[in-house]
């Protein structure tokens, strides 16, 4: 059956730091900007085409548990605000293969971070958006 259920195996590294056990969600947005190429004579709108290469506009959204302990979430993320870094995500922790591809976003920019996101009686979480960069997919 062609379905994927995420239990505990997806892996996430940010700036080479493995944050799998602090992560509760991750979304890769793989985007090529839509350029209109509709011209006279067309009867419907067209976008892109073989001679049109648009810019990638990728991003990755992740939600992490906040932790102020040594070498944990806060220590790893705080210094990355305002600079570019690299993220790697895989569906499972198994070796990279065609059925377990690895996605690397190189040169992604972290614009903002919420060092304190606190509510009484709840675990603190942070939501980060890494924008820009080149997305590559590896299957071996």
């Amino acid at each position, binding site marked *: 059956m062609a379905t994927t259920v995420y239990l505990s195996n997806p892996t996430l590294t940010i700036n*080479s*730091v*493995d944050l799998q056990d602090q992560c509760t969600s991750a979304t890769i947005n793989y985007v090529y900007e839509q350029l209109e190429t509709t011209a006279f004579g067309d009867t419907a709108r067209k976008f892109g085409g073989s001679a049109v290469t648009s810019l990638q506009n990728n991003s990755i959204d992740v939600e992490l548990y906040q932790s102020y302990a040594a070498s944990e979430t806060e220590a*790893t993320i705080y210094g990355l605000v305002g600079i570019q*870094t690299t993220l*790697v995500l895989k569906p499972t922790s198994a070796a990279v293969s065609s059925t377990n591809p690895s996605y*690397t976003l*190189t040169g992604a920019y972290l614009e903002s971070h919420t060092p304190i996101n606190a509510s009484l009686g709840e675990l603190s979480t942070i939501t980060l958006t890494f924008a820009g960069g080149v997305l590559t997919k590896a299957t071996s």
Partner: protein
Amino acid sequence: MDYEVTSNRLNGHKRGDIIREADLGDLTTDLLFLVEAGHLSPLKVKKSAKTIDIDPQE
């Protein structure tokens, strides 16, 4: 420069490993951030011990 891995979160390495910047490939922006975050510690170059010349006993 060599670095000692000081956390268990560095991808592909474990605490106590000695690595170089090249070992992390292109996956890290700047090792300084990993040092500040406590994942790496730069290894200081140890000076070799001074030797003392002792005249051979006759």
